[in-house]
């Protein structure tokens, strides 16, 4: 039996898509600042990058508040249980047309692999990106804050984290097509409603 439930709350969807938009714009403008692309020109790219960076920080504050007050943070508690089954599914069973081993529910939205991946993104990659970004942006103020260091280190850490975010984006986007149909996961993230096993 299949039934439709509301998987994603309104704020969750808003947060997801705005964050996606901001991260994509940050990646594009960031790689332009890095000298890889030529789209907006350095001045505009820098301006947009800083604006989106601050926007993402503000969005992040709201998202943390939402996760904390709704208890949704528990979705990311890592577990190794059944991790092998999930891995086996993606490298093997998915090709045989077998059903996903994780029973997705409102309370267990994320499979063990997702828990680990998203937790890594949230507590390692994005904070690294945020801190190195602030470090990079405010390097003129370091001496006044009693800090020292060089701009190159800040820039390179920020670049390395950007590559990690881009790799995450590639894999995340691809895996969004592995639902019941190509777009069923994306549709769920837009409408909030998803068809699950009863």
């Amino acid at each position, binding site marked *: 039996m299949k039934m439709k439930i509301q998987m994603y709350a309104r704020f969750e969807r808003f947060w997801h898509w705005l964050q996606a938009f901001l991260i994509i714009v940050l990646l594009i403008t960031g790689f332009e600042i890095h*000298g890889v692309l030529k789209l907006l020109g350095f*001045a505009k790219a820098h301006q947009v990058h800083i604006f989106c960076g601050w926007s993402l920080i503000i969005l992040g504050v709201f998202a943390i508040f939402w996760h904390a007050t709704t208890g949704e943070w528990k979705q990311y508690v890592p577990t190794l249980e059944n991790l092998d089954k999930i891995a086996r599914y993606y490298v093997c069973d998915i090709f045989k047309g077998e059903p996903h081993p994780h029973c997705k529910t409102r309370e267990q939205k994320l499979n063990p692999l997702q828990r680990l991946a998203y937790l890594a993104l949230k507590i390692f990659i994005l904070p690294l990106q945020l801190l190195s970004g602030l470090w990079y942006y405010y390097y003129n103020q370091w001496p006044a804050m009693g800090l020292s260091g060089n701009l190159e280190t800040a*820039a390179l850490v920020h670049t390395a984290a950007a590559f990690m975010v*881009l*790799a995450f984006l590639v894999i995340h986007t691809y895996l969004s097509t*592995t639902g019941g149909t190509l777009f069923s996961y994306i549709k769920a993230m837009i409408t909030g409603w998803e068809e699950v096993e009863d």
Partner: protein
Amino acid sequence: MGLPSRKNCGACHFYGGGTDGVKHGDLDSSLFSPNKKLDVHMAVNGPNFSCTACHTNVNHHMAGRYSSDPAPVIHKLAMPKDYGNRISCESCHSSSPHKDSKLNDHTDKVACQTCHIPRYARGGVYTKMWWDWSTAGRFDENGKMIVKRAANGTIAYHTKKGDMRWAKDVKPDYAWYNGKMDYLSLADSFDDSKPVSLNRLEGSYDDPKARIFPFKIYLGKQVYDPARKTLVIPKLFGKKGSGAYWAEYDWNKAVAAGMREAGEPYSGKIGFVETKMFWPITHMVAPKEESLTCDECHSRNGRLAALAGFYLPGRDKSDWLDTLGWIMILLTLAGTIIHAAIRMASRNKQKKEQIK
């Protein structure tokens, strides 16, 4: 009595080196009555500053750079009551003159002139970029002096001076500079296997007083002492028989006479060596709309491509980090494409089996 006018100062300073615009790339006769595009401060249809508006004086000591001494620069506002000199841009504009704080973050390492004087010799007057004295002294078949002009009308060869090249609307060169210069003196010997720098700029990225500053690099070839590896003083003006170059056109005689009159030693041998000299660019400040855009420096092959010793966003990267990063991205892309291909192939197979 009154303050000196632009005419007084310009009569000499605009013509240094023999004629209009030869030495400085940023001082020539176009500054007698410039428009705003050429110089926002001196513009006759603008503030109409005379030289003394910035070159103030204390006890008859004019503010400005004196040979190796830096101009009395403090990189902050200077009120007349507490500081007599208003020679630096910051004296009036402060070191945080921009609305954008990121632009203000530049003023500790980048001189105002660097962005605000995008090109020099913009007033239509050519400045001399190359002066090869070694070819001077040629005469035509009638024994007359030769004067050749380039396509742009500037003198390309003159019997008295040799070959030369001129330019206008020139992009400056850039170097770290804390205001101090060292000059090569007659006593200093040098390596003559490469172009000799007649002055040396002090400063580097690590020097907190040094900033990136624009320069005209004036190149040439001039007479020197190849045995002592020092510069020499040729005598140029004089009567026939005095040894003066412009009377007898003999470098050996001219150098012998010049060094004798100067009372300086020389080996008796002469040669020609390539020389270069840094001329700071600080006049001809353009309207703000024409100041450099970020990309001029923040790009792979921008104006600061050759300036080493620091990380410049947009210009610099770590080759190994970028290579590693792009390999990782390519691998993830390849992985997803392969995964998708297997998915499609196996689904088609399953469909066929179902039909069977």
